[in-house]
Each structure stands twice: as structure tokens, then as C-alpha cells.
């Protein structure tokens, strides 16, 4: 495993970034030139420059957002885990985030109501279902 642990995968290459920003700068210049050409009476040239400028801005913005989306897609999302604690005597229930060392049926802090020992009864993650597929159920 001779590779460096800090992966370069999550970083957009500086060359790509440079190309994006040069395109963006040229497109903005084209837009400025278009306004100058339009005020100078050269409507056709202004039209072409306007088209070129808008296309350039749109393309570079799209590529920039795509690069960012790729980085976000790569991240390993840590799901939130819920721990449910119950008092078997009085039925008091409390829900909190998972803490290292929690496990199902572990005895934890005394109950706030009856001071009896409380028990971890559930540890789970909730998944928000994406739009239900049109199933063949």
C-alpha cells in the first residue's frame, strides 16, 4: 500500500479548475464586448458575442457544479443512530443519539422518575425511503 493515505480523489484538479475559470473569464469578456458592440451599432457581432458569452458562462458553471457534486457523492455519509433507553419498572422511555459503548440490553444510568436501572432496548438507524418505486407487488 505504498499510496499516500490522503486521497486526491476528493480534490478537483487545479488544471480543470484553471480551464473552468479561464472559460468563465473569456465568456464574461465576450458579454462585455457584446454590450460595447451593441452600443457601437454592430448588432450582428453583438448577437454572436452574446450567444458565445452565455454559452461559455453556462458551460463553465455546469462543469464547476458537476465537479462539486462528484466530491459530495464520494463522501461516506455517517447515518445518525438512535439509542432508546427504557425503564422496565415505570416504563419511562428516552431517546438519544448513539454513544460509543452503547449496546442492546446494556444497563445505563438510573431512571429519572423511579431511580431504577434503565436498559438500552433499541439501537437503530432510520432510513428515509426515497420515492416508492412503481412496484409489481
Amino acid at each position, binding site marked *: 500500500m505504498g*499510496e499516500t493515505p490522503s486521497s486526491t480523489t476528493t480534490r478537483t484538479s487545479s488544471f480543470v479548475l484553471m480551464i473552468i475559470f479561464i472559460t468563465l473569464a473569456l465568456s464574461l469578456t465576450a458579454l462585455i464586448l457584446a454590450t460595447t458592440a451593441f452600443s457601437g451599432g454592430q448588432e450582428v457581432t453583438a448577437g454572436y458575442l452574446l450567444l458565445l458569452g452565455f454559452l461559455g458562462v453556462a458551460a463553465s458553471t455546469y462543469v464547476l457544479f458537476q465537479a462539486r457534486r462528484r466530491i459530495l457523492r464520494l463522501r461516506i455519509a455517517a447515518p445518525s443512530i438512535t439509542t432508546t433507553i427504557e425503564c422496565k419498572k415505570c416504563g419511562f422511555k428516552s431517546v438519544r443519539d448513539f454513544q460509543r459503548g*452503547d449496546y*442492546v440490553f446494556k444497563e445505563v444510568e438510573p431512571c429519572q422518575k423511579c431511580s431504577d436501572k434503565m436498559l438500552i432496548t433499541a439501537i*437503530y438507524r432510520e*432510513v428515509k425511503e426515497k420515492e416508492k418505486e412503481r412496484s409489481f407487488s
Partner: protein
Amino acid sequence: MNMLTAMTALQNKLLQFPGGDIFSQILTIVFYAFFFVFLFYGQRFQMQIMLREVESSLHKLRYIKDEGRKIAIETIKEIGKPQTDPTARVDRFLEYFTITPQSLDPAGVVWKLEHILDVRDVRFKDEVKLMAPSADETQTYNLENTLEAAMALNYIYKVIRHFYLLGKKTLSLYIIMQIQMTLPLIMREAEAYANALKAFAHGQPIGDGGGALVAAKLMHGYETRKIPKDNVGATVPIEGRTAYVIKAEGPGGNVGKPGDAIKTIIEENEGKIATIVMVDAALKLEGEEVGEVAEGVGAAIGGPGVDQFKIEESILKYRIPINAVIIKEDIGDAVSPMRKEIFDAADKAVERIKQVILERTKEGDKVIIVGVGNSIGIGQ
């Protein structure tokens, strides 16, 4: 003759530039150029697109693998408090391999495989103890599981990289195609392992522990004893029957050896067991709901097959009927933190087990209930 004239006319028509203007001429040239380029290089373009797709997945795999390694090292440093930097040892561990026994003569191969797996297990535990001297037993089990997940990610990355480079080197469409076509499934598995890594590092219950959770729910509140190997058992009265409930010892990441545990209980009772009910998490098919509970017959247990073989041998000796209850989930759910649906399904599985016992046994009978799966984050 007429036919020949018509053919020549068509040829001339096709070869001449349609329209007289320069724009049409350029378009026609471009069209012909594309036609011929795709005619001769179409497959190569397709191959390049596939290679690009594999390359993009390979980038993601490399990131996941590096993250896995980082999480494993950080967890070892945090929990194990080693005197020296464990990085080099972790890197060596990630490259470990296991050679399965020769099966040209299949007789006795299960015992050979069991021995190899035992050696592997002991070796892994010793390595973890060296890496993390301050870790207690539960943490050692969890660290071992964390390292195994990191190892799996490392292996997946290396296999995909192998086929990618081989495909690039040989420009063989079939090498590239086979990897590109299976890539979505491989990526799902890699993502599942990435999630598992965090769950193992934190000691959270995973979907695979569905069976162990059912057993834990049944045995909780009753006296437990250790059963070889790495299992715990409790004698629980259920519906007028005596149930021997078995699960892997928790809350550390451990699957135990249910085959040995079942054999021990059967021998202790001289084979007088009315039925065995095995509960396990099983892979669902697409379209099925996560947490669906189903029932059947047979030894519900995965893994390399050693325990299934032992269970089948034990029940055959005394002709003991075996029933199975499964909780359905996909590969991603099996190795990532337990979903609420699976947790809730444990209660449904308990009810189903009671129903099986009521229907299949008489009052006063002895039954064995085995909760199969990883006991990480699940006590007893």
C-alpha cells in the same frame, strides 16, 4: 442495361455534394467522416467509454479504501492506545490472505477448511492484540471486524484495478465489458463495507445481527452460560416447552460457531430435541420489503459452510427436524448499522418462532432456538 444506368446515377448522386453551397459540402464531409470513423473505430470508442466508467468507479473505490484504512488506524489509536504507530502493521494486515484447502479429494475438506479458518481467526486476534494492547475483549472483536471490512475494501479495489489495467493493456473488449457490467453490484458491496466499517468501529449493531437480536430478546432476563465456541445459551420456558436459546456472545463483533453450540446441546440432551428453529438475516430480492419475515426449513446460516455442514450432520444423527425463520434485507443493510425495520422485525420473528413451536412440538418438549449472526452491539 437500364439497371446499370440507374446504379451509376445513384452512385454519382451519393458521391456528389448535395446542394451547391459550402455549408452543405462541409456537412456532407463531416457526415461521411463520422460514418467511416465509427465504422472502423466504433468498438474502440465504446471501449474507451467503458474504461472511463470503470476509471471513475475506481477513483471512488480508492477513496473508500483510503477512508477505511484511515478509520481503522484512527480507531486502533483511540481504543488500543499503542506505544508505536500501528500504520505499518495495519498496512501489512490489509494484505493478509487465506488459502482455501485443496478439494480435489473432497472427503474431509470441511474439517480442513475449519482448521484453516481457526488458524486465521487466532492469527487475526493476535495481530489486533499487538496493534491495540489496551483494548478489552469486546473492543478487540470490534477492531478485528473493522480491520476485516478495511481488508475487504482493499481487496475489492485491487481486483477492480487489476481488471481495469489489464483491459487497458490488452484492449480486450471482453475483459473491460465483464468488469463494467458487474461494477454496479461491486460498488454497492463496497459502499456497504464502507458503512460497516464505521458501525464496527463504533460497536453499533448491524443488519446481519437480526438473528442474534431475536435470540437476545428471547434469552434476556434468564441466566446465560457460555457454550463452545464463542456462544452463549439460556434455558427459556416458551409455551410450555423448554427452549435452549443460543446466540454468539455479545456485544463484541462475533458470529461464534453455532454448529458446535447446537451439537453440544443435542449431545447434552442425548438427541431428545423435538425441533430446531434457526433465525437469521437473509438477502432479499429486489422488490421485497426490508424486514419481511419468512419461514421455511433447513439450516439458516451463511458463511463458508462449515457450521451449516456441522448442523446438518448433528440433526441427521438424531433425525431432528429443522425450521428456519429469516429476516429479509439487502447486502447494504446486512453490514451497515441496523435499520429500524430490521429491529422491528425481531419482534415479528419472535412471534413466528412461538407459532412454529406451538404447531410443531408438544407441551414438555425440548427445542433449540439459534439466533445466527454478528452480535456486535447486542448483549444478552
